[in-house]
């Protein structure tokens, strides 16, 4: 199944059959991530999109081992980091960095911006104090802040400014791959444009790869090479961004793409709506997760969870119904 995910070139990040189960009350199991495969090639951007609560942040947190996966394998440039004893992880963080969804909670409130940016340099790079100070100044400017912001504490920054500090911290040690969890969600369009430009520029100059989690489909279309769409713990569609956006196949992908608002006066869009309540990730049945809400559901959809089906051109969809009945 994994071959359909495979991109050209060598995968810098490879995720195989990742699972994360949270025990919840009454001995039940919340299946947050249910067998996810991902490949990100060096210098490439893979976008991970999908319903809120579908497990995107959990995938990211498992990859960097902020939480322990329940199963699966993760390798960075051929080196396994899942499974790997926690104490051997330190060297890996030089190569993989993460920007968190919630910049407020991820910045230490007792450190000012200078200290936040200096810390990874001190931990991972052998630089002199003066070199580090220079690099810190370079970093704040790269993300469009000024040296005056260096003395500020997180609570003294606006939401967007905090997010930029998070990005500066992640790129500080020149990693190979950065996981960005909603990196631009609280930025205005002009700064968002700047940050995206910056990310693309860094990618070109440093050959950085990105795993880019976002709800902003415009941004995804703008920056990503490939996209993977998640729904309740699983990837339901994956492929080159242009193909998936032009010809979305999975009913969830179609609903998602049709819901995006357009920043123009008087434009009306036609939404493809999913019926009913969002299904729960707790003790899910062995069936397509969309079954209660899907306009195309067939009796066969309740018999087993569909896996990804290759459509050619690296496009794959986990829905036999749409594959059998082409549009």
């Amino acid at each position, binding site marked *: 199944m994994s071959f359909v995910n495979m991109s050209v070139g060598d995968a810098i990040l490879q995720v195989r059959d990742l699972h994360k189960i*949270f025990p*919840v*009350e009454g001995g039940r199991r919340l299946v947050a991530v249910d067998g996810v495969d991902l490949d990100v090639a060096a210098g490439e951007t893979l976008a991970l*999109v*999908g*319903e*809120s*609560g579908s497990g995107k*942040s959990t995938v990211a947190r498992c990859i960097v081992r902020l939480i322990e996966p329940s199963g699966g394998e993760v390798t960075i440039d051929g080196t396994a980091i899942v499974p790997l004893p926690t104490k051997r992880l330190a060297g890996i963080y030089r190569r993989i960095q993460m920007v968190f*969804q*919630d910049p*407020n*909670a991820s910045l230490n409130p007792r450190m000012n911006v200078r200290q936040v940016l200096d810390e990874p340099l001190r931990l991972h790079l052998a630089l002199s104090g003066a070199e580090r100070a220079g690099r810190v100044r370079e970093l704040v400017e790269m993300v469009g802040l000024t040296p005056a912001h260096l*003395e500020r504490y997180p*609570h*003294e*920054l*606006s*939401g*967007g*400014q905090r997010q930029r500090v998070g990005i500066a911290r992640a790129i500080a040690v020149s990693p190979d791959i950065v996981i960005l969890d*909603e990196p631009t*969600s*609280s*930025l*205005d*369009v*002009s*700064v*968002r*444009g700047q940050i995206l430009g910056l990310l693309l520029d860094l990618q070109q100059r440093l050959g950085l790869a990105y795993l880019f989690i976002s*709800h902003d*489909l*415009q*941004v995804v*279309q*703008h920056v990503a090479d490939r996209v993977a769409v998640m729904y309740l713990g699983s990837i339901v569609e994956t492929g080159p961004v242009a193909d998936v956006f032009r010809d979305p196949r999975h009913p969830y992908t179609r*609903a*998602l793409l049709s*819901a*995006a*608002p*357009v*920043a*123009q*006066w*008087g*434009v009306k869009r036609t*939404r493809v709506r*999913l019926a009913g*309540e*969002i*299904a*729960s*990730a*707790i003790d899910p049945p062995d069936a397509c997760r969309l079954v209660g809400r899907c306009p195309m559901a067939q009796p066969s959809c309740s018999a087993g969870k569909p896996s990804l089906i290759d459509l050619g051109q690296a496009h794959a969809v986990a829905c036999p119904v749409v594959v059998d009945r082409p549009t």
Partner: protein
Amino acid sequence: MSGVLLEVENYSGAFWSPTNELVPVLHQVSYRLKTGAMTAVVGETGSGKSLVALSIFGIQPAAFVCTSGRILYRDTDLLGIDEKEMRSLRGAEISMVFQDARAALNPVFTVGRQLADVYQLQHGGGRSAAMAKAIEALRQVSIPEPERRARQYPHEFSGGMAQRAMIAMAALTCRPSLLILDEPTTGLDVTIQSDIMELIVELSRQRGLTTCLITHDLGVVAEICDEVVVMNAGRVVETGTTEAIFTAPTETYTRRLLAASQLLEAAA
């Protein structure tokens, strides 16, 4: 319907810097929220959108000093009333969804308990009735299995779910006249985002709710807002109806902002 519920008038303010100087951040900010209308506040990050909203809610940061202006809510100057009076307005009259939803929820109580507490505070009644209302509110913001989710703690929620719980609390558990939403849907996928915005639009129609929506998403603004306030660097640069702002912006900054969002669309 054309009355004004809230008016920010020449509001200016500054922060104490670490070197004990006053650094001005808001300059003569003026805007109006019309009764029953949905007004968007847009503008670049750091332009003061949240700060004005926090001031309306009476929780501006301690280091912030107001140097001039008034914030009139139904003819009461919110800057002139004491904490006790402000507290009686919060929730009952004015309600707010914060930019950082997860941080705004209390980590040591279950989500259901927090909603039920707020409900009881506003409406009285028994414990189990309050919990039932809390669960109903969670259901309305598309949280699956709300009975069980109500018994979970904020850290067990995804980012978007925490945001929806905050919206449930501010808009449904409370029954405010004025609802301030600071980037309420940025962490949500567009299907849920659209559902939530539809819910808010419906509430405004049904209850005549007045809403102030701070957002970076000009698509949402074009689709659902009646009025727009554009801010830049601590100043209001332009206000007008959504149609006027989108079709005939007069200020360069507004044009730049619109162009930036359409560029991104065109590039996409």
